[in-house]
C-alpha cells in the first residue's frame, strides 16, 4: 500500500492556477525531494497534503484512506506530520513545554483535567528522548523565542517527530541555517527510522538531492521532471529552469563583456 498518494491534484487561487495535474506516489519509507524555483507551488502542495488548504480538484490518500476532506488534526492522527517553512512554534513557552504539548495528542488522555502534567512520566520521558535526539536537552528550560534560528528549527523538527509520524513533510528544513546547522539538521533527518516516508521541500538543491532517493521538480505548478537525483540533474529542461538556456547564458556573458567585466 502506498503511504501517500496525491491523485491529480490541482489548486486555484481565484483565477491563478497554482498547481495542476500533480500525481505523486510515495512508498512506505521513501524519501522524496521536491525542488523547483520560487513560486513553483511547493509550499501550496505541502499545505494541501497536510490539510491546511483544500485542493480545487483531485484527491489525497494516506495509506489508502481518502483524507481530502479531513481536518489537519485527524490527518495528524493517521500518522502525518509536518514542519513549516516559516517557523511555527510556541514562542513564549520553554523548549520542554513545547515538546510536552507535541507529545500529548497521541499518547495521553489529553482530556485529563485534574492531574498535573508533571505526573505524566511517560510524556516527559518521550520529550527527553526527542530533545536528546536533536541535541537540545540542555536547553530544555529556555524560552523558545530566545533560541537561535537553527535551534528553533531543531525544536520544530523534534516536535514533528514526537508523534512517530509515518509520513513526514519537511518544508524547507534547511532554509536560513549556517553550514554547521545544515549539517546537524541533515544528520537528524538522515537518522530518522527508515520506515518513515518523507517529502522534503528544499531550495538547497544539493542538500535535498543528498537526502532523498527520488526527486520531483516542480515548475509553474506542474511536474517538470521526476526521477533519481542523477536523472533529474541531466535533464535539459531542469537545467533550463535552474541555470537558464544557452541563449540566456550567451546574452548574460555578452552583457558582462560590454561592461568590461570578466566572465567565468
Amino acid at each position, binding site marked *: 500500500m502506498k503511504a501517500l498518494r496525491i491523485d491529480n491534484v490541482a489548486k486555484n487561487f481565484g483565477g491563478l492556477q497554482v498547481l495542476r495535474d500533480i500525481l505523486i506516489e510515495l512508498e512506505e519509507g521513501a524519501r522524496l525531494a521536491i525542488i523547483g524555483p520560487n513560486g513553483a507551488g511547493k509550499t501550496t502542495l505541502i499545505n494541501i497534503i*497536510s490539510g*491546511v488548504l483544500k485542493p480545487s480538484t483531485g484527491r489525497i490518500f494516506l495509506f489508502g484512506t481518502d483524507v481530502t476532506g479531513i*481536518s*489537519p*488534526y485527524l490527518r*495528524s*492522527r493517521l500518522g502525518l*506530520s*509536518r514542519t*513549516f517553512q516559516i517557523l*511555527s*512554534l*510556541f*514562542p*513564549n*513557552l520553554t523548549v520542554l*513545554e513545547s515538546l*510536552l*504539548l*507535541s507529545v*500529548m*495528542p*497521541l499518547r*495521553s*488522555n*489529553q*482530556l*485529563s*483535567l*485534574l*492531574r*498535573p*502534567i*508533571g505526573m*505524566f512520566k511517560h*510524556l516527559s520521558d518521550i520529550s527527553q528522548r526527542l530533545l536528546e535526539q536533536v541535541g537540545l536537552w540542555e536547553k530544555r528550560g529556555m524560552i523558545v523565542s530566545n533560541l537561535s534560528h537553527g535551534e528553533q528549527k531543531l525544536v520544530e523538527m523534534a*516536535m514533528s517527530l*514526537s*508523534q512517530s509520524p509515518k509520513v513526514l513533510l519537511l518544508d524547507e528544513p534547511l532554509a536560513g541555517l549556517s553550514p554547521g546547522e545544515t549539517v546537524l539538521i541533515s544528520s537528524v533527518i538522515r537518522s530518522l527510522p527508515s520506515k518513515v516516508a518523507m517529502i522534503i521541500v528544499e531550495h538547497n538543491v544539493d542538500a535535498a538531492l543528498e537526502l532523498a532517493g527520488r526527486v520531483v521538480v516542480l515548475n509553474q505548478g506542474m511536474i517538470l521532471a521526476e526521477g533519481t537525483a542523477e536523472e533529474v540533474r541531466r535533464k535539459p529542461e531542469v537545467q533550463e529552469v535552474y541555470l537558464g538556456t544557452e541563449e540566456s547564458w550567451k546574452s548574460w556573458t555578452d552583457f558582462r563583456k560590454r561592461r568590461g567585466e570578466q566572465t567565468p
Partner: protein
Amino acid sequence: MKTFIKTLALFALLGILPLLLPSYYTGILIRIMILIIFAMSLDILMGYTGLTPLGHAAFFGISGYTMALLNLKVFHGSNPFIGFGAGIAAAIFCAAILGLIVVRAKGVYFMMVTLALGQMFWGLAVKWQQLTGGTDGVAGISRPAFAFISLNFSKEINFFYFVFVLFGLSYLLISLFVNSPFGHTLIGIRENEKKMEILGFNIWLHKYMAYVIAGAFAGLAGMLDVYYYQFVSPEVLDIGNSIGALIAVILGGSGKLFGSVIGATIYICLEQFISAYTQRWVMVVGLLFIFVVIFAPLGLSRLLSAFWVSFKKPTEVK
C-alpha cells in the same frame, strides 16, 4: 512544593483574618473571594485559552437567578442542595448552548458575539417582569441552611466560612485544571492555534470545554453573590459586571491564577475605600488600569513577584 506551602499559608491567613479584623471587613472579604472566583473563571478563557469574552456575567447571573427563583417560588425557602445544583447546572447548560455558537469566533468577533449574547440575558431579566421582577429584582432570598450542621449562615462570619470553603475548593480545582495536560493544551492554543491543529489536537473541543468549565465557575460565583446580598437584580447580568471581572484579571495579570487574586482584591478595595470619599471611584480604577496597561502590561502580580525577587537577591542584577 514551595508554592503550595505559600498558598496554604495565604489561605490560613485569610481564614483567620475575619477574627482579627472588625466585623465590617468580613463582608469585604466575602465580596473579594466571590470576585476572585469570578475572575479566575474568566482567566481560564482570557489568560489560558486566549479568548476574551465580554459577556461572562451571563453565567454569573443565570445561576444566581435560577437559584433565587427556585428558592423563592418553588421551595419557599432555601434548599441548598437543589438550589445549588440547579444554579450551577443552569450556568453549565447555558454555557454548553452558547459555546456551540461563540467558540467558532475568534478575537474581536468572539468579544462581540459574547457581548451580544450576554446582553440578551440582561434584556431578558429586565423585560420578563412576572418572573424576574424587572429592574426591581428579586429580594428576600435566604441563605443556605444545612439541617445536619446547625450553622446559621445568616450570621456574616458563618457565611464567610461557607464562601471560604467553596473559594478554597474552586482555587484548588482551577489550579489543578490549568496545570493538567488539558490546561497546557489551552496555553498551546493561545500561543499557536494552527500548530496545535497540525500536532493533532481537536481545537474546537478544547475551547468548548474551557468555555463550559469557565461558565460553571462563573455560575458558582454568581450564586454566592446572590446568597450574600440575598437579592438579585439585572445588574448582575449587566456588562458592567463582566467588565469588572475583566479589569480585575488585567490588573492582576492574566494567565496566572494569583493575578486574579491580586486584581480582584485591589478592585474591591478601591471600590470600598475610595467610594467612601467620592462617587467617582471608577475613575481611580480607570487611572490605575491605564497605569498597569502601560507600565506593567503583564499585571501587578508579576510586577510584585519581580520586586520580591530583586528584594531577595539585591546583588544579582540582570
